[in-house]
C-alpha cells in the first residue's frame, strides 16, 4: 500500500467531518441536557481521550447505545462504538447492585424460573415495585417481564428427535428472553421453520450474549460470555449449520459488538448468525413456501428496533410481513422507543426513556393497528407499557398466519 492511500484510524473517528448529522438523530441529546451528544462523546471526545484519558466524560453513561448515530452518519463513523469502548476503557465508577442485577439476565432467569409464579406475583405488586424503586432505583412504573416456569431449552430438548427428522437443520440462539421469559416466541419459530421443512437444534450450550453486561460496566464478564458463545456457535457453524436468532440486539452484539467492543474474534461465525426473518425471507426467495391461512386478517404496524436498523435488516422483517396474505402493513417512521434494554428500567432514566419514545407512541396511536410488529423484546416491553398496544415478534405473527399443525 502506498502511503496515505487510505486515512483511517481505529474506529475511523477521523472520517468524521463534523457535519453534525448524528446530533440530529440522537434521541438522548433531545431530552437530557447533561448529555454532550454523539459527536462530542464519540469522535470529538476520542481525540481528547487519546491525549489524556482524564478527559473521559462521565456523561457518556447517558448514551443508550441505540446506534442511530451510526445508521445516519454519512461517513460510517462508528460513533456508538467509540462511546461504548471509551466507557469500557475509562469508566471508573463501579456498577451499582441494581446494575449487576439488571445485567445478569441469565443468572436472574435461572434463579427466578423455579419460583416463577411467586416472582411474577411479587414484581406485579405495587409494594414490591415501590421497594425496588426506593432500594434499587428501578423505576416503579416498569412492569418487570414475567418469568416462565418452564424454559424453552427444556421444551426443545424434549423434541430433539422429532426436530432431527427434518431434512434441513438450523441451530437457534434463543437468548435469555425466550428461554426465561417468553418461550412462546421460540415455539413460534420452531413452528414456522418446521413448516418450511427445517428442523431446529439448540446450540451445544449458549450463554447470555452479554450486551446488558457491556452497557452496565461489566465488560470483563461480557467477554467471558462472548468467548464461550463464539466457541459454541463455532461448533454449530463447523457442522454446517446456520444459526438463527429472534432478537435483534443479541444478533448485533454477537456479530458486531464482540469484535469491536470486546475484542473477541468472531470471524468464523459472524456471517452464519442471522435473524430468523432474514433466513426465512431468503428461503422463500429461493422457492420455499409457507402454508399461509386464508382467513388471516391483521393491520400491522412495524417498528424497526434500533439494532435492527443498525444491522440493516429491517427490510427482511418488513418483506416477510408484507408477504402474509391478509396483512395491512404500515411501516412506522424509524425512531427509538426509549427503552434501550436495561436503560429504561433505571429510575434516573425513566422520564427520559418515556420522552424519547413519545414520537413513536404517537405514531402508533395514529395508525391504531391490531398489533405492532417488532424484533426486539425490550421495545416490546416499552411499547406495551406505554401505549397499551400489543407487540409481537414478526416470527410470532408469521406463526399465527400459517395453518396449525396442532402441535405445541
Amino acid at each position: 500500500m502506498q502511503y496515505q492511500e487510505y486515512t483511517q484510524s481505529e474506529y475511523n473517528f477521523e472520517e468524521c467531518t463534523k457535519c453534525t448529522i448524528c446530533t440530529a438523530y440522537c434521541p438522548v441529546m433531545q431530552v437530557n441536557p447533561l448529555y454532550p451528544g454523539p459527536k462530542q462523546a464519540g469522535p470529538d471526545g476520542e481525540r481528547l481521550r487519546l491525549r489524556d484519558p482524564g478527559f473521559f466524560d462521565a456523561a457518556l453513561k447517558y448514551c443508550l447505545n441505540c446506534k442511530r448515530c451510526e445508521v445516519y452518519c454519512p461517513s460510517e463513523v462508528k460513533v456508538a462504538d467509540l462511546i461504548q469502548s471509551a466507557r469500557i476503557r475509562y469508566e471508573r465508577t463501579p456498577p451499582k447492585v441494581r446494575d449487576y442485577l439488571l445485567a445478569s439476565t441469565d443468572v436472574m432467569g435461572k434463579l427466578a424460573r423455579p419460583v416463577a409464579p411467586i416472582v411474577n406475583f411479587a414484581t406485579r405488586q405495587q409494594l414490591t415495585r415501590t421497594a425496588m424503586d426506593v432500594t434499587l432505583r428501578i423505576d416503579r412504573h416498569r412492569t418487570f417481564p414475567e418469568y416462565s416456569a418452564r424454559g424453552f431449552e427444556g421444551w426443545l430438548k424434549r423434541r430433539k428427535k422429532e426436530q432431527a427428522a427434518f431434512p434441513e437443520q438450523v441451530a437457534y440462539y434463543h437468548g435469555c428472553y425466550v428461554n426465561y421469559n417468553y418461550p412462546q416466541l421460540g415455539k413460534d419459530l420452531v413452528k414456522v421453520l418446521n413448516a418450511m421443512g427445517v428442523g431446529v437444534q439448540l446450540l451445544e450450550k449458549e450463554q447470555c450474549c452479554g450486551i446488558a453486561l457491556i452497557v452496565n460496566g461489566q465488560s470483563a464478564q461480557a467477554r467471558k460470555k462472548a468467548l464461550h458463545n463464539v466457541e459454541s456457535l463455532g461448533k454449530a457453524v463447523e457442522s454446517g449449520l446456520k444459526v438463527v436468532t429472534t432478537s435483534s440486539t443479541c444478533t448485533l452484539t454477537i456479530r458486531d459488538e464482540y469484535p469491536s467492543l470486546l475484542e473477541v474474534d468472531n470471524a468464523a461465525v459472524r456471517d452464519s448468525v442471522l435473524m430468523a426473518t432474514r433466513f426465512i425471507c431468503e428461503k422463500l426467495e429461493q422457492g420455499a413456501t409457507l402454508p399461509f391461512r386464508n382467513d388471516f386478517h391483521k393491520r400491522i404496524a412495524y417498528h424497526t428496533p434500533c439494532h435492527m436498523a443498525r444491522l440493516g435488516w429491517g427490510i427482511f422483517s418488513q418483506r416477510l410481513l408484507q408477504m402474509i396474505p391478509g396483512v395491512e402493513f404500515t411501516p412506522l417512521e424509524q425512531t427509538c422507543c426509549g427503552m434501550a434494554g436495561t436503560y429504561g428500567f433505571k429510575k434516573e432514566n425513566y422520564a427520559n426513556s418515556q420522552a424519547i419514545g413519545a414520537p413513536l407512541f404517537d405514531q402508533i396511536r395514529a395508525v391504531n393497528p391490531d398489533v405492532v410488529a417488532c424484533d426486539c423484546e425490550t421495545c416490546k416491553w416499552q411499547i406495551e407499557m406505554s401505549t397499551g398496544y400489543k407487540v409481537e415478534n414478526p416470527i410470532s405473527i408469521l406463526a399465527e398466519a400459517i395453518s396449525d399443525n396442532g402441535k405445541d
Partner: protein
Amino acid sequence: MRYDTVIIGGGLAGLTAGIRLQKAGKNTAIVSTGQNALYFFSGCFESIQEPTPEIQSLFSEAGIRLHYSPGVRLMPMGTFKESALALEDVSLFPSPKFGRKVLIINFMAYHDFFSSFLAEGLEKQGMECRIRFLNLGDLAQPELGPNQMRAVQIARKMDEVWDKVVQEVRVLLKDEDTVILPQVFGLNDATIPERIRQGIPARVVFAATLPPSVPGIRTQMLLKKRYEVLGGTYLMGDRVTGAHVYEDTVQNVVTKHLDRHYLEADNFILASGGFFSKGLDSNPFKVYEPLFELDMDYNTDRNAWYDPSFTNHQPYMGFGVKTDADFRPSRKGVPVKNLYVIGSILGETHPELGCGAGLAIRSALKVANLITEPHAVPGVYTE
C-alpha cells in the same frame, strides 16, 4: 433481491430518480450510506431558473412547496445572493432593500444564528434594525443544555411551541415592517412557517442557521416518505461495497449489511455524491470513483487540484466521473451499458445542467426518462 433499478445514494439526485421511476411503475431500491448533503441544503435550488412542470410536481406531490420569483435571497451573514427557485420558507426579494425597519429575533445563547451580522448587512442596504433575544427556557422545558443549542434541537422544541414565539414577536413588534427569524421552524410539520407568517402582522423572513439545515432535513424526510409511499425500498445506513460487472453490464451490487444477499437489477444508478459523500475519493496520487473505478475527468497533477485562495473556485470541485451524453460511464474506456451516473459525482462535467440542486434534479430526471422510455431517445442502448 431483484429490482428494476437499484440506486446507489439517497440524496436529492437519488431520491428524485427513485420517485420518478416508482411513479412510472418501476420497482426500485435506494442504498444510502447515512444521511446526505440535503442536511446542508440552503433551501434554494441553485442553477434552476424557471422550474419545469415535472420539477414542480415532483416537489408538490411530496408536500414540498416551492416558489419561483427571480431576485435575491438573504444570506445568514447579512449578504444577498441571486436566486430564483426556493422552498416556500425561503424569502425571495426583487432587490436587497426589501423593507424599511426590521426586527431580528434570536435566541439567547444561540451562537449559530448571526443576528448582528444580519443587522449590519441590512443596515448597509438602508434598513433600520433592532435585535431582540428570546429565552428558549421560558418557552419550552426541559431547557436545552448550553451545547444543545443547535438548529435541530431547537427546531424540535419549536414544533411544539412555535405559537409562543408568534406571541412573543407580536409583543416585541413595534413599527417594523419585517421580522427575521432563524430557520428553526417546521422540522416535522411543513405548514408551521406559513402559520407563523399568518400570525405575525409583518413580513416574516426566515434566515439560515449553521448546519444542519432544518428546511433541508424536512425536504429530505418528505422526499424519502414520498418515495416509500410510492413503494420504493430505502435502505438507510447501508453501503454498496462492490459490484459484479460481467463484460459491460452490471449484474448486481453487494452491500455491507446484506453481504451475499446481492441486489440485482436491470439498471443501476450511481448517485453517490461528491467528495463529502465519498462518491469520489482521493489520495496523494489520484482522484477516483471508489466503487466501479469508473473513468474520471480530472487533472492528474495534484498541484492543479487547488486554488491557493480559499474564495476562488476550487478546481477539484469540478472533477467528476466521465460519461457520455446519456450519463453512462465507462471503465478503462469501455462503456458500461446499464449504469447511469447522476448528481454531484458528475462534478462539472455537464455544465449545461448547472450545479448543486439543479444538477442533481436535472440529471436524475433525464436518466429516469432514459430508463423508462429507452426507445424514445435515439442512440440509447436497449437489451
